[in-house]
């Protein structure tokens, strides 16, 4: 259904994507996981034309996509996106009804009344929400409206850019369940971007791990869930996702604990050394700070 080959994107000379290739089958749920700044959101923006690409090809159902920002109305009918920030994805002066009505009008779909009522029910919002403004809605409700807006024109593909990262954990659970239900009911194809590994493993069939603009590993969600990542970076992400661990203070050494997971730390340090070697200045203070600190703390864990 979706096929990306050697996709490269750069912003003002700084490379954001350095040759991304993967495929998503129709009806599949594909996850993209990585830290912030890894480029995973840029992939979605390239597909939708919100970011221009420098190289590579993108195919949706066999049809190639334009390098720049032009997307024809047929493409927009098939592919839609849900954005991360619930507080920025709705126009502050438009009611929910206006948002949905406009989406239908642009695409030339009639039966606005029925469709609006229907989609609101599908996303779990009753009719009382129809004429509210965004500032009268909670974060979770706004995301539901964003999902309704995306789905009201019956797309086949839904691109989701961290759709629940800004929501409370309890609301996130409800919204993710909703997305899963909608996917099954409408046989949608998902590309879900998140930095949160457990969210990805719950929601997706296959996962691509993105680091610094490169797809370093592709594996099934079940494998990731078991912790079976082969690349060092994947293992590092899994280690970080296991939560905070209080390190041993100076004095007693917990031999058993360090022996239990040497591979994670060794792999992580090896990876860090590889990254630290050529350190171009233009990456700024962030990267060098992180690496230095990681090396310091990495050693203190021993």
């Amino acid at each position, binding site marked *: 259904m979706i096929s990306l080959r050697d996709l490269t994107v750069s912003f003002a000379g700084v490379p954001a994507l350095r040759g991304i290739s993967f495929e998503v089958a129709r009806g599949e749920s594909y996850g993209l996981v990585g830290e912030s700044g890894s480029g995973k959101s840029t992939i979605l923006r390239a597909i939708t034309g919100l970011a221009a690409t420098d190289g590579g090809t993108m195919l949706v159902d066999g049809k190639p996509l334009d390098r720049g920002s032009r997307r024809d109305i047929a493409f927009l*009918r098939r592919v839609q*996106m849900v*954005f991360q920030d619930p507080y920025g994805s709705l126009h502050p002066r438009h*009611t929910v009804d206006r948002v949905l009505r406009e989406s239908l009008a*642009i695409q030339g779909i009639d039966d606005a009344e029925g469709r609006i009522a229907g989609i609101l029910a599908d996303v779990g919002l009753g009719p009382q929400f129809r004429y509210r403004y965004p500032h009268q809605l909670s974060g979770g409700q706004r995301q539901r409206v964003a999902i309704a807006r995306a789905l009201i024109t019956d797309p086949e593909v839904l691109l989701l850019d961290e759709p629940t990262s800004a929501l409370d954990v309890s609301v996130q659970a409800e919204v993710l369940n909703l997305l899963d239900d909608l996917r099954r009911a409408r046989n949608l194809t998902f590309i879900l971007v998140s930095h949160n590994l457990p969210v990805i493993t719950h929601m997706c069939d296959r996962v691509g791990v993105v680091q610094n603009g490169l797809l370093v590993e592709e594996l099934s969600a079940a494998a990731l869930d078991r912790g079976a990542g082969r690349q060092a970076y994947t293992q590092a992400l899994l280690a970080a996702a296991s939560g905070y661990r209080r390190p041993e203070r100076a004095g007693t050494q917990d031999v058993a604990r360090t022996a239990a997971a040497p591979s994670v730390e060794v792999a992580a340090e090896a990876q860090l050394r590889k990254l630290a070697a050529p350190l171009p200045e233009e990456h700024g203070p962030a990267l060098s700070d992180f690496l230095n600190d990681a090396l310091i703390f990495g050693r203190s864990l021993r």
Partner: protein
Amino acid sequence: MTIATWLQAETPSSTTQAVLGEVWRGLRLTLRHPLAAAGLVIITALLSLALAAPWLGSWGLTAWDPYHPDLAQRLLPPSAEHWLGTDSMGRDGFVRIAFGARITLIIVLLVSVIAGPIGLTVGIAAGYAGGVVDGLLMRITDIFMAFPRLLLALAVAAALGPGLENAVIAIAITSWPPYARLARAETRSVRQADFIAAVRLKGASTARILLRHIAPLCSASLLIRLTFDMAGVILIAAGLGFLGLGAQPPAPEWGTMVAAGRDALTDQWWVATIPGAAIFIASLGFNLLGDGLRDVLDPKSR
């Protein structure tokens, strides 16, 4: 249910109810600030006076005509019969102030209706297009802004000749640049927002985005600026009138009235002072209202 309850309903059941509800909320917010409430009261009083002016006679409030001279009654001080005294032609002061309010408000309205949209269009176009178009439009704006407002208005009015319409044109020409700057700044900050990207992904044309999505967002700060500027417009109009440009006698324009009363200032102070006070009160009212509007329309106060 009462009107207040209907307006404050948490779940409006139509767009009309939603919009009116927001207006009502804004009104209540405005009235919470004593100064803004004072501004609202002043402007409302001004508006009422202006609207009721032609019918003042038929309501028995006064039997005086703003235009008809009655030299037997000239230069009378304020009394029970002539609330604000009479001018050098024996015309009742109060009636002339009332009719002058009409002229003042017409000037303010016309200038707003001309300068506002011009500034908005230039600003939005510059902000959205960017690049060369932005540079060109902003340089034109800079040129207009480089001239002192009163001087430019004088020059244009002098070139066009005396008269109310020419005064309006002159003031409007000098008034639009700040709105262009404002609209451009708002457009640039809103341009990257997710909700703009979302509606673009639904297939909205650029025209639709500019007109239906960006323009309404600029309108808030534009309206606030307009309200503040109305005070300045009143003063410039009065200045033009004072200098003999703008509305010509016997039209009861406040500035002209001040000029006419100049000679009698020491003995018959009310002839010049009362119109001057009217100018002052009207300007103050608009300034206070502008303050209140800024608090109401500023999204951060929600």
